[in-house]
């Protein structure tokens, strides 16, 4: 677990570098004044925290400052990190994925908008679970995008994953059904279903997701047991809208935030957590198979404010 924690920190290193560059003058021991508060606001807004979360953190810092005008900048950063950690309390944790009592594998459906990183995340997650000693099957249910099936198959070959796939244009729900059936008869612990990217505004495509659910429920009325939204960490406030709509129509149980290895700070996820309370299971910190890591709110919060 400590190894993972280290990896999480490493991945966020660039993020930290970017934000400390902005906040360095602020937290270097100088006292807080109007201009340093504005710098702090800029740092938070440009991390995609959104106006509401930013305002909340700022007002806490201001309140502490009013009580003690000599409050040094370093303490403000601690306050900021504490506020953010508190906002994110309860957001972390990964579910224990195991077989149902009747032998049905735990089913995770990966959903999200186009290009958020569902296929890559499916592969990385399957690999991580296999490393934990679980047996996993992945299902290539993105039958819409050209070569999406081949993409998952290539990953499966590279990482030695068991895969159920059909061809582009096939009925996604049928592939999902086959996969769960195969997973059950092969005694798998987990079946991960990769789906096609869809914008949350497309009613007909949301309908396809509902169909996948209906079909899976023929095998297990409780399936899919998990529905994870894959969110691109470099997107802004629209991720919150995405999460809201996917949650409304499909019922999300968790989030995976991808592409946090860039300079993006993925602050919009904080907005998702605040408004929907959907836990953040994993973050994607790179292109390698091991770059999917459990989310750590405290490390994240402290990183955001440039604290070790």
């Amino acid at each position: 677990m400590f190894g993972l924690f280290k990896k999480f920190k490493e991945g966020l290193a660039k993020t930290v570098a970017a934000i400390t560059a902005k906040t360095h003058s602020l937290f270097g021991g100088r006292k807080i004044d109007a201009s340093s508060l504005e710098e702090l606001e800029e740092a938070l807004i440009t991390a995609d925290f959104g106006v509401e979360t930013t305002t909340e953190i700022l007002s806490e810092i201001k309140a502490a400052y009013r009580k003690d005008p000599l409050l040094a900048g370093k303490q403000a950063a601690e306050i900021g990190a504490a506020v953010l950690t508190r906002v994110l309390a309860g957001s972390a944790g990964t579910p224990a994925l195991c077989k149902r009592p009747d032998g049905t594998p735990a089913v995770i459906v990966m959903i999200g908008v186009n290009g958020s990183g569902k296929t890559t995340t499916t592969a990385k997650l399957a690999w991580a679970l296999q490393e934990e000693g679980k047996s996993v099957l992945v299902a290539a249910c993105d039958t819409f995008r050209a070569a999406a099936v081949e993409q998952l198959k290539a990953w499966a070959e590279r990482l030695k994953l068991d895969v159920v796939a059909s061809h582009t244009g096939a009925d996604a729900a049928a592939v999902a059904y086959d996969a769960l059936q195969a997973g059950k008869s092969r005694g798998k612990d987990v079946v991960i279903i990769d789906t096609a990217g869809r914008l949350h505004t497309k009613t007909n495509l949301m309908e396809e997701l509902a169909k996948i659910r209906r079909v899976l429920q023929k095998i297990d009325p409780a399936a899919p047991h998990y529905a994870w939204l894959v969110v691109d960490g470099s997107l802004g406030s629209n991720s919150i809208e995405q999460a809201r709509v996917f949650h409304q129509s499909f019922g999300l149980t968790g989030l995976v935030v991808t592409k946090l290895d860039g300079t993006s700070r993925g602050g919009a996820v904080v907005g998702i957590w605040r408004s929907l309370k959907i836990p953040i299971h994993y973050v994607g910190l790179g292109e390698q198979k091991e770059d999917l890591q459990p989310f750590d709110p405290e490390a994240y919060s402290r990183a955001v404010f440039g604290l070790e």
Partner: protein
Amino acid sequence: MFDSLTEKLSSALRNLRGVGQLSEANMEIALQEVRTALLSADVHFRVTREFIERVKAKAVGQEVLKGVNPGQQIVKIINDELVSLLGEGTNTLSGSRPLKILMVGLHGSGKTTSTAKLGRLLKKKGFAKPFAVACDIYRPAAIDQLEILSKQEDLGFYADRVSRDVPAIGAAGLAAAQTAGADLILFDTAGRLQIDADLIEEVKKLSARVQPDEIILVADGALGQEAVNVAKAFHDALKLTGLILTKLDGDARGGAALSIKSITGVPIKFVGTGEKTADFDVFYPDRLASRILGMGDVVSLVEKAAEVIDQKEAEKLAEKMKKADFTLEDFLAQMQQIKKLGSLGGIMGMMPGMSGMKIDEDAAETGMKRTEAIILSMTYQERRKPAVLNGSRRLRIANGAGVKVVEVNQLLKQFQQMQEMMKMMRGGGGKKMMRQMEQMQRQGKIPGR
């Protein structure tokens, strides 16, 4: 918190009624709201600040015009500023032949799809032999994806599935395209982080080898504050000539576009608006600005209508409406055409004054489906002459459509009212509307050719 920019602006400007002259003081609250709105729409922090300053400078001291409320006047100023900012620079493509275009961007921004879409669009606009070169050797099956799309759109295609030398692949692709007599050569590259020094170096080398006429950054329309850093780094490394904004069929307000444009000055050239390769269009600054400001996107709606609605069918319908011999069959056809325009919510979003309105889209769509089912449960004779519909026929139809008889009666009543309205409008302004539609279509000519 997450209302659209449109709604935010409307509510901010409502506070500005009954003011004689715009001043810093009376605009302050409104501009504060505008700031929040822009930030919530993902416009970059600094860009927002500059933009507000520009608007303030323009507005302060202006007399409020007669017949206009101060809110409308500010909207006009903001709109003009937005249009000029978004539209600065040329959105035409280089005139070189063959035209070489290098597509770059982050992971998952839509480069491969946009490559195929651009090839298709330019082919329609007169390029005889477009050609795609696959330079993404990293993402599994990326080459397959481009190959399938190229085949589908009838573009020439080159890939090397063995080599790991991207600049050399690009050069070989260029040679292959030239041999094939291509007049348009598109280079699709791998997604890369702007801070990944090795991969940025690689694409710089590729660019040096193939000497593109256009280097286009493909960016997700929902990008957050990071859009600025991404665009700036790519621009510094490669000297971008244009931008493609993707996934605009979602409900992101596209604040990233404003950020990228004002920080780099790189013109926005095209937009991706859907899953199909045909869902791709030239960028119109006024449309994006109007959409942001909630003035609707009538032009897009009209064009979309012109595209999907069968012209002959529409004329036939218009003729029938004029003569008021519009039957339930025609009503059904009309409904089916509306459905082709997309979701009702999408259509409403494009209409002026409607974007703030909340409709229960699902209920409306279900309503349409039920109406369709009712009409489809009628015989042809019944559709043409609803007068024959007695009680037992209505019961049969209700059973067939799975609805209550009351619903059948309601539909017939509505239909009757419609017919009466048409009789009243007989000879009305139908022609004028057609002319306007044609005019707008003519203005929508693609630049770059």
